Structure formats: C-alpha cells, structure tokens
C-alpha cells in the first residue's frame, strides 16, 4: 500500500454555532498517486471537503492530516503548497493580466526567483497545452482554456495533490474534454494525487476510487464499478447512473447474464460478444 497523503479523521463542520452541521463525522484516506472522485448532490458537503483540505476552513470537530501534518492556522501555508486547487468559476480565479502573469501568481506569492518562474511557466503551460497563449488576456480565452491556465498555475508550485472542485461544471462539452485530456496527461506524473469533485460521470468512471457524499455524510467509498452496482440507491440520493450501467441492467432484466458491472461501452460489448460466441 502506498503512502497516505490525506487523512480525514471524524471531521465535522458547521459555519457557526447555531447553524446545522454541513459535514458529520467524515472519515476517509487518500493515498499517493491515486485519483479519487467525490460525488454527491448539491449541498451534500463536497465543496466543504475541498475547502477543509486546503485550510480555507477548519474542522469544528475531528482533524485532517495532509502528508502527516495537521491542518491548522500554523500549517496552512505549508499545506497550500502541497494541495493545489482549481475552482468552479473560470473567471473568478484568474488573477493575472495575461496567461503567464496568472501562472506566475502562486509562485510570486512564494517568492520563487524570476528565472525559475520563467522556466516553470514554460513547462507547465506546455503540460496543459497552452504554450501558444502565454501573453493572451483572460477575456480572449474560452472557459476551458482559462481552467487549463488555472491548472498550470497550480502545477507550477509542484503540489502533491491537485484538487478540482467542480472545475468542469461551467464548461461546454468541448471545454470538459480539454480538461479531461489535460488531467489524464498529468496522471502519468509520479507523486501527484488527483481529487475531482464532480457530477460528470465520465470523470467518475475513470477514477480509482469514489467517495459518495449524501447530506454531509460519507455514504460510500469504493471502486467505481462497485458504486454503480447500487443503482437504485444512488438514484434515490439524487445521482446519475452511466448509460452502460443502465443498459447492462436492462439486458440482465431481459435474461442475459452480464456478470461484471461495465464501466464503458467496450467492456459491455466484449461481454456481449463472449455471450454471443458461447451460444
């Protein structure tokens, strides 16, 4: 088993004494080099988790360890170096006047020397495929491009965890594809864990593990394949089921014995072909 990077230990959170708990007794671990998707209906506490990981909020009860260190007032700057976040609205996180200024922002905050900044701007913009837009102003970029710049800005500080908090929710399908492409290119890199908070099923099925949130509690943590076995229960808590999973169910209903839970078209077709050949 690889190393634990993030530990949530019985974490509860509420905004003030007299408001209801947003998170209740949440515990989970995230390991090195892992891709974890967090899903749940709006208001289920997903985004609160993101803010807690980054020390933008602190737990009311329980504790959070990042790379072994507890998140608190003293450790937040250390922790924000380890956890990079990309938020939902592409416009409201773009600080710089141009693409390169924005990528530089996080490094400037940490006093990275200028010569090194230039190097890292180049390499991170390459990594997200935005090298041709170094001097472009934000209002000339599409939403997907802005989010790629935001990812580059996070990568430039070489974090251990890249956390995408509904980073594709406001994008069109083209923008989503761009981001997913970017992310899967990054996954080859060693030592980077990925957390995606999302409604997008495509992001969910590609993840190593899924944390399902419901009304501020952890509803389930397991592999995507196992999660989608619980179709009816998932629907009940307001979540979507991938097309192939629904089709597989209908096929079972009609008498075909599809044993494994397919995650994509190819898997289902393969199983159908096996059945076909056997008959």
């Amino acid at each position, binding site marked *: 088993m690889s190393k634990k990077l993030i530990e949530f230990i019985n974490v509860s959170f509420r905004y003030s004494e007299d408001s209801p708990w947003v998170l209740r007794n949440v515990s989970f671990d995230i390991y090195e080099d892992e891709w974890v998707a967090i899903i749940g209906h709006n208001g289920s506490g997903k985004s609160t988790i993101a*803010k807690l990981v*980054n020390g*933008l909020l602190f737990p009311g009860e329980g504790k959070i360890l990042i790379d072994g260190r507890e998140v608190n007032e003293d450790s937040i*700057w250390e922790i*924000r*170096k380890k956890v*990079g*976040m990309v*938020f939902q*609205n592409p*416009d*409201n*996180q*773009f*600080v*710089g*006047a*141009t693409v*390169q*200024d924005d990528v*530089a*922002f*996080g*490094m*400037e*905050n*940490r*006093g*990275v*020397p*200028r010569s090194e*900044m*230039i190097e890292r*701007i180049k390499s991170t913009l390459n990594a997200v495929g935005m090298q041709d837009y170094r001097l472009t*102003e*934000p*209002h*000339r970029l599409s939403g997907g491009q802005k989010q790629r710049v935001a990812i580059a*800005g*996070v990568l430039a*500080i070489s974090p251990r965890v890249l956390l995408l908090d509904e980073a594709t929710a406001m994008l069109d399908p083209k923008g989503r594809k761009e981001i997913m492409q970017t992310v899967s290119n990054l996954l080859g890199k060693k030592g980077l864990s990925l957390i995606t908070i999302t409604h997008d099923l495509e992001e969910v099925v590609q993840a190593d593990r899924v944390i399902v949130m419901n009304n501020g509690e952890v509803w389930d943590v397991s592999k995507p394949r196992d999660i989608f076995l619980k179709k009816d229960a998932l629907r009940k808590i307001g979540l979507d089921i991938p097309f192939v999973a629904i089709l597989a169910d209908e096929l079972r209903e009609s008498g075909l014995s599809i044993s494994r839970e397919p995650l994509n078209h190819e898997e289902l077709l393969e199983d159908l072909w096996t059945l076909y050949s056997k008959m």
Partner: protein
Amino acid sequence: MNSLIIGQYVPGDSYVHRLDPRTKITIIFFFIFVVFFANNVPSYSVLVIFALASVMLSRVPLRFIIKGLTPIWFLVIFTFILHLFVTKEGEVFFDFWHFEFYTGGVVQGVAISIRFFLLILVTSLLTLTTTPIEITDAIEDMLRPLNKVKFPVHELALMMSISLRFIPTLMQETEKISKAQASRGVDFKTGPVKDRIKAVVPLLVPLFVSAFKRAEELAMAMEARGYQGGEGRSKLRELKIGKLDMIIYIIFLSVIAVLFYTRTYA
C-alpha cells in the same frame, strides 16, 4: 466590444511600445512641464517635431490618434476664440462689426491651441502604446519610496491590476443582465426620465450581487494560491531601463536644450 474597453491600447512592437513604461511616464511628465516654456516659432517647432516624430515611430494608425483627439477639438476652438476676443495686444488685425481683433490675440490663440494639442497627443500616445498593466507596474515602481511611510503601494497596484482585469468581465455581465431584464419588460431606452432611472435598479442590484460574489471567490482563490500580502513576494514582471530608454532620454534632453536655447527671454 472587449477591445474597445481595454483602453485604446494598440498592440505593436514599435520603439515606442518597447520603451520602459517608467521612461514614457517620466518623459511625458517633463514634456508637459516644458511645453509651457515654449514662446516662439522655433521653440514650438522643436516640441511639435518631437511629438510628431514619436507618433510616427509608434506606428499607431493615424485614425486611432485622431479618434483620441476628438473630445478636445471643441476645447481648442473655444480657447482660440476666447483669446481672439480678450487679448488686446499688437496691431488691429481686422475689425468686424464693432469688434476689433488684434494680431496678439491670433498669436496667443494659436499658441494655446498648439499646447493643448501637444499635451493631449503625448498623453494619448502613452495609453495607445502601453498596456494598462504596464502603467500599473510603472506606477507601483515609481511610488515605491512611499513604502517607507507605510503607504500600501503593492496593495494599490494589485487592486488596480485586478480592476483592470475584471472590466471586460463586468461589461459582459452588464450586457447579459440588461438583456435579461429587457426580456422581463424593462424599458431602458424610452419613456420619461423618472422611469428610466427606476429601470436602473434591476440592473444595478444583480450586478452588485454578482460583483460581491466574484470578489469573495477571487479572494478565496488568491488565498488558496498562497497570497499573503506583499511581503516576501517575488515578481515576474520586470521593468528594465535599456539602451533604447537611454537613447530616448538623451534625445529628450537635447530637445529641452534646444528649446531653452531658442526660446525668447524677455
């Protein structure tokens, strides 16, 4: 639409574009100062030649320059006429009805108009060839001494650059909201003034709400990216006085020398 909002910056790579913004601001400052010392044909000529040469070097299309000057034509003509009427020096140039026009008035009028023209020309050349963010950088750098008296120079510059960055975003937002409210029957364009003022409320409230939300999210994003104020920060943007700047300074100093040499000392 966006290109119009971001000031009248005309992208380019001319000598004027490549100058350090601090050089441009310094020269313009002193230019404005010395314009008031010109008092005869040769001294004015020196300044006009310097200004026009800069315009030509900037390779900014003439129509942009002229567009930048339109608001002041009225002012120039007005002061010209004013001088024509009130200055009673020199000989009577001609008289018309019972007004007498003096040559001194004409000369004064022309001189003042040229001054106006020069001032506007060089300052608009600054905004035409310098991005707002470069101007911000220059101001931050030039105000740096004020840090000693605890003046928040870095914060001011950051505020300026973020405002500039969000102007196009908020303009788009304004357009969207006004479209939405027009679809709900708000009439922004016709009707009595009172109604039209009232029509601004459904536009302003949502705009403020959204601006606050943006500010809040932006602040959070900045914090998440490690922003803790100006201390200990490094900078990507770097201002550098180069050979080109030195050349311009020398040329400008020569212009001043010639100006003071040729002007009349009464």
